[in-house]
């Protein structure tokens, strides 16, 4: 769902792009401040490796139906692993490299893409925390990871549909139903992959669920 600059065509879409840049900068500043205050231990290695993995995983498109494909976004995955603040920063790095080196997602549209994937992805942490009462040991943990991953893709697709709507003659009446239609299925892929990743990591190295354990008492919202 990376929005290219090609879709930022008229005054309403430029206004939306600028607006999303401002919102993105505000969230970025907030995550950075909170990240510095929250992490009591260095998460450098986990942050670097999980970000690199998400970049690699985003390159691999899986086919869904109707000659369409999707790929993992990884926002909820990073949020569970790193907590919300580092997840937002991590995904921002992934998107930045994609936009700068590979023109995957626009520069003008960067605020939009960062909001749809990095910020929604990072904030999905709080929904998992709510559903599991902050415990990765909860019986509801894995089902929550699935549902929230799916939901984060749907929410991102919905916002993306609104953001690109000025470029379409039919506006939101065209973009919202069609984006949600494809992302209902793409989100199932997101949920399945995220569950496989998180449950395997939990089995191999339970201590790695830093997002939930490290931050348990510190992430109040």
């Amino acid at each position: 769902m990376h929005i290219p600059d090609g879709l930022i065509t008229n005054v309403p879409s430029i206004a939306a792009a600028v607006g999303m840049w401002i919102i993105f900068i505000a969230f970025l500043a907030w995550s950075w401040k909170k990240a510095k205050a929250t992490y009591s231990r260095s998460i450098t290695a986990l942050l670097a490796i999980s970000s690199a993995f998400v970049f690699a995983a985003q390159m691999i498109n899986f086919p869904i139906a109707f000659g369409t494909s999707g790929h993992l976004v990884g926002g909820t995955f990073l949020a569970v692993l790193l907590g919300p603040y580092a997840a937002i920063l991590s995904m921002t790095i992934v998107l930045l490299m994609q936009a700068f080196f590979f023109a995957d997602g626009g520069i003008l549209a960067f605020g939009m893409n960062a909001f749809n994937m990095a910020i929604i992805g990072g904030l999905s942490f709080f929904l998992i925390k709510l559903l599991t009462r902050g415990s990765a040991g909860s019986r509801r943990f894995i089902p929550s990871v699935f549902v929230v991953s799916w939901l984060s893709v749907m929410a991102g697709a919905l916002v993306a549909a609104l953001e690109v709507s000025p470029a379409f003659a039919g506006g939101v009446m065209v973009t919202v139903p069609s984006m949600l239609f494809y992302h209902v299925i793409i989100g199932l892929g997101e949920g399945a992959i995220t569950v496989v990743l998180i449950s395997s990591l939990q089995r191999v190295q339970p201590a790695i669920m830093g997002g939930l354990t490290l931050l348990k008492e510190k992430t109040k919202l």
Partner: protein
Amino acid sequence: MKKHLAVIAAIMVFLAVFIPLASSNPDGLERVVETFGAAEHAPFWNGLMSDYAIAAIGNPYVSTLLAGVFGTFMVLLAAFLLGKAMAPKNTEALK
């Protein structure tokens, strides 16, 4: 450290195995653009390796794989520097 290198190597293997299997179909947003015909203009920034391909390399597999490996290392480096900048001073690292 050894464990970290093993995971990074595994990411490279993952790319090498899955790049040829990846679907080249349009993604959800691209499909919507194709179906309904958006007012689209040419992008003003094409990146250094547009569409995850290195123009100088003819073989599409090698080209995409190298672009992917390059991107993975750039993210690794940037996130590592971010982690260092973010880390509290004088504390042990999370294993």
